């Protein structure tokens, strides 16, 4: 068991280590520095638009659908634990999505501010951090979409268990 634990920990330690930059990559970063920065700025703007679009939709779904439906179910004594848990998870997921987006954006801004001509290694290390933070935002978005599917399924079961109150 301790051996297994060590192997498990070693895998995580390895995953946290940044991939070293090859000479070709270093040269490429220095040579294409300005176009890389332009690309990053474009991504930053597009991501901001995506965040606002998704954030607004999550907000609409929560305030116009989930909250009123939960209240209506409570009033009708039909609120099941799965629907309630799903609702709470959705709100927690929204907060995580926003917080992880802030963390990602902060690091992306830091990356854009890094001088890639003078410090290509530092630039690449920051880029790897940004990739990790971006993947967390993507996971949050997938998780929220999955929760909405669960919610739809739970609501569909209400039709079968319809009651006159």
């Amino acid at each position: 068991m301790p051996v297994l634990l060590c192997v498990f920990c070693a895998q995580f330690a390895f995953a946290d280590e940044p991939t070293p930059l090859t000479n070709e990559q270093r040269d490429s970063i220095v040579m294409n520095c300005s176009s890389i920065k332009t690309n990053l700025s474009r991504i930053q703007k597009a991501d901001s638009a995506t965040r606002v679009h998704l954030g607004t939709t999550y907000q609409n779904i929560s305030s116009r659908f989930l909250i009123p439906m939960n209240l209506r179910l409570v009033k009708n004594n039909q609120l099941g634990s799965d629907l309630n848990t799903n609702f709470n998870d959705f709100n927690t997921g929204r907060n995580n999505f926003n917080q992880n987006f802030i963390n990602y954006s902060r690091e992306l801004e830091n990356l854009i501010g890094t001088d890639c001509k003078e410090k290509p290694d530092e630039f690449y290390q920051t880029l790897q951090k940004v990739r990790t933070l971006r993947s967390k935002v993507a996971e949050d978005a997938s998780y929220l979409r999955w929760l909405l599917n669960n919610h739809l399924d739970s609501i569909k079961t209400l039709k079968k268990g319809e009651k006159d109150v």
Partner: protein
Amino acid sequence: MSKGGRNLIILGLISILITSITCGISLHLYHSSGDIYLDRSRPGFLPDENEKDAEKKTTYTFSEDGIITDEVVDEYLKNLEEEIKNIDNIKAPFSADPLSDESLGISTDEHIKTGE
């Protein structure tokens, strides 16, 4: 300069100082809280005109009063699925592709190095 005039200048300077301090604190909080990254009204991040037109506005709100019937559930599902389409319109949000080495132009190919 009269005493009143001097006092007026001092008052003006104190007002400017207080305004500068409170603005500085507000901007610091705006940045440190991360709200700046959630805000699209800052320069350089404003939505384009065509983007504004493309946004679909929802006016439907489910009522929290009344009984739960099959019709009510159907109406709810129909409108919610419509709203969820706004999420599905964005394919693979925050995918890894835009930040890949290839997309950014960071290549391991020798021809890039030599500029061929």
